[in-house]
């Protein structure tokens, strides 16, 4: 350890900024490398505080966020070189998560210059010394991390509105009837009469309806106000108790079925899927939709043009956000999240949020504070977005449901973009594709890892 003169030593000198670096390191490589640096008397700054973990695979994103929350000015995550992991593949899993998490941090406006990833082996005491020295100096130049979760002065946030329009609240519910409604009712009547299903989960005039008797199929509608993603009901125990369901889905909702089955939450054979051809609902997601026709339904009702959207189209609404400088991006989200009341409407409408005990409900330790403060709100939205990496199908229900008008879809889009650009992966499109998190490739991109 080096003896840097501390500010406490000389009372006639103004206190210099001493960066606080938190390093999460793996036990078998980097920790031993740091140990080697010590035993071979290589000096490195004492600004670094080390947390030893068995493997980088153990490091979840919430540890990185926690380090910043408690006051770290930079965070280092370091482990074994690819191929050398003591547990064979923990670092590959970690690498894949880091690739995605960096994109999310970038979209939120975190200063990525303060997050470092390295591979340091047990023999690389020199590298440890160099890396720690470099990070400490760079952080000293950058200064303390004071802009974390900071919003501009109250009320100013409106000037940073970058999100596209899509205000549907207040639009009347009785919209025009599309083709297919009569066919849908007929199909449901038949299914109920023949006892093939016990309940139809469909759209009613005012919202979702659960039709159990053939004579009630007149309650079902099909029009451009059928916004909800009904697949969320497949996991609700009150609905499951009704028996074998038929479910009405649009092409976008159907993608959720693919993900739910891949994650062992539903069995396609235990339900009847009525796929509706959709001409577009006028939502932002509809502009770049390429699933107007359902692809895996038991029955398809209606016809629609299935045009493949240009990949770039999907990220169009993200461009305005990504064009902002980092600090402005964080101000934008800080202003948005100031309005969050932690109602969890975003979570409850999401078919992928099926955990019986959500992480925000866990304490000992409290990983995500439930309070509607800047810290609690950022942590919650980061958590939810990241847990949806490679799983969010872009139904945008979370954004529609938010009573505070927060554009949550931008966070999901940033991760969907990362998934597609780095891994060619789109959630819910191919039932046979390997999952994104939980799998890895030896070719996962490395260029941000030193």
């Amino acid at each position: 350890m080096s003896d840097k003169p501390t500010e406490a030593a000389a009372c006639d000198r103004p206190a210099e900024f001493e960066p606080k670096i938190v390093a999460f390191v793996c036990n078998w490589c980097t920790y031993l490398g740091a140990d080697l640096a010590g035993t071979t008397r290589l000096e490195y700054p004492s600004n670094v505080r080390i947390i030893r973990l068995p493997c980088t695979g153990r490091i979840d994103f919430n540890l990185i966020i926690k380090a910043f929350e408690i006051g770290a000015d930079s965070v280092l995550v370091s482990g074994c070189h690819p191929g050398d992991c003591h547990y064979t593949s923990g670092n590959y899993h970690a690498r894949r998560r880091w690739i995605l998490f960096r994109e999310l941090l970038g979209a939120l406006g975190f200063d990525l210059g303060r997050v470092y990833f390295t591979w340091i082996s047990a023999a690389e005491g020199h590298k440890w010394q160099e890396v720690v020295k470099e990070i400490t100096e760079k952080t000293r130049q950058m200064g303390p991390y004071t802009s974390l979760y900071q919003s501009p002065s109250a009320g100013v946030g409106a000037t940073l509105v970058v999100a596209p329009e899509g205000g549907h609240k207040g639009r009347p519910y009785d919209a025009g009837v599309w083709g297919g409604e009569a066919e849908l009712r007929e199909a449901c009547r038949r299914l109920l009469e023949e006892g093939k299903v016990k309940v139809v989960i469909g759209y009613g005039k005012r919202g979702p309806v659960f039709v159990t008797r053939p004579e009630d199929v007149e309650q079902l509608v099909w029009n451009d106000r059928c916004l909800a993603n009904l697949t969320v009901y497949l996991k609700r125990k009150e609905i499951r108790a009704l028996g074998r369901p038929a479910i009405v889905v649009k092409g976008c909702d159907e993608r959720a079925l693919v993900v739910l089955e891949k994650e062992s939450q539903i069995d396609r054979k235990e339900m009847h899927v009525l796929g509706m051809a959709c001409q577009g609902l006028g939502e932002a997601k509809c502009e770049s939709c390429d699933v107007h026709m359902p692809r895996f339904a038991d029955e398809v009702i209606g016809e629609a043009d299935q045009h493949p959207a240009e990949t770039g189209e999907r990220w169009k609404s993200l461009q305005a956000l990504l064009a902002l400088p980092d600090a402005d991006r964080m101000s934008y989200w800080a202003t948005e999240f100031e309005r969050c009341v932690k109602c969890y409407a975003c979570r409850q409408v999401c078919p992928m949020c099926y955990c019986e005990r959500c992480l925000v409900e866990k304490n000992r330790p409290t990983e995500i504070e439930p309070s509607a403060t800047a810290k609690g709100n950022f942590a919650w939205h980061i958590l939810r977005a990241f847990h949806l990496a490679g799983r969010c199908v872009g139904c945008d229900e979370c954004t529609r449901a938010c009573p505070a008008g927060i554009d949550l879809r931008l966070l999901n889009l940033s991760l969907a973009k990362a998934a597609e650009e780095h891994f060619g992966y789109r959630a819910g499109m191919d039932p046979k594709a390997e999952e994104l998190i939980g799998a890895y490739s030896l070719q996962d991109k490395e260029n941000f890892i030193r």
Partner: protein
Amino acid sequence: MSATISQAALRELVGGLIAQGKRVAGPCEVKPGCVLYAPLVSSAQLVLEGFIRPANSLKEFIFPKHEELYGYRITGQGIELTEVEPLRAEQVLIAARPCDAAALPILDRVFNWDYKDELYNSRRQLTTIVTLACAAHDDACFCTSVGLGPAAERGSDALLLELGGGEYEVRCLTGKGKSLFDGKLQASERVASLPSGPEKRFEAAVVRAFVKENLESPFWPAQTLACLGCGACAYTCPTCHCFDIVDEGNIERGVRARNWDSCQFALFTLHASGHNPRPNQPSRQRQRIDHKFRIYPEKFGEILCTGCGNCARNCPVGMGVLRVVATLESSASGSAR
């Protein structure tokens, strides 16, 4: 004879209050198509027309979504508690809807019955509310079904009524209202005609009798299946007031705070043993209607609802109190509506 103010003068008044360092809030368009009550930094942000009502309620300013109760520090010598500074700045809520203002006298009861909530009371005393009578309503509004109306005066310190031509009639209802508008009003011959509100959608007395006698009715499972158990209705409701108390901090220091809570969350009544007396969504929905239309009236003589319709508009699946209650009432009285 009446007292009036022009829109321009009203905005000037608002600007003056902001310059004085008071906390001023009112409807703002935070996003295209999304109007919320929010703190104002300039009077230009205040939106006075073109929407039915803000998607949130005023209770945030009297009963915040997160409020620190006290702090603690654990030192080598023991535990020190630190008091939280109560709000000292006066606040003015401009252009509130009558259904928001009327909620506050209703809430006063529960915050002052077995325990006088000083945090709530001090904010109440420091707040002046200016309401703007509703010129329009939509199919989610039902203030007239719970004894209120578009120009209701309850809870308001001053009521503004549109006269047309950018003018408002001003009725100062309390001393606070009078002193706020002191010297700012013009005498006028024009008197506003009271707007008519939505037609009555149900009889509250019928609802109260139904929930009392039909706790186990199959009505509840049948009509509440769509509810997903989020907090959007409770958190945007002007009268919902349940809260959770949490300790947040680390081994050195932290705070005890209260946060809004919703009876629709599955965890709301979960016991530490694992038993939940309201184990499914129908029982939780039933409780919400019961609380608003029977329990609170029995206890405090007030319906815990002002018919603002936020629950219906904000519910992601189109539910909310109105949809359940209107169906309940029509099935109870046997008449089709």
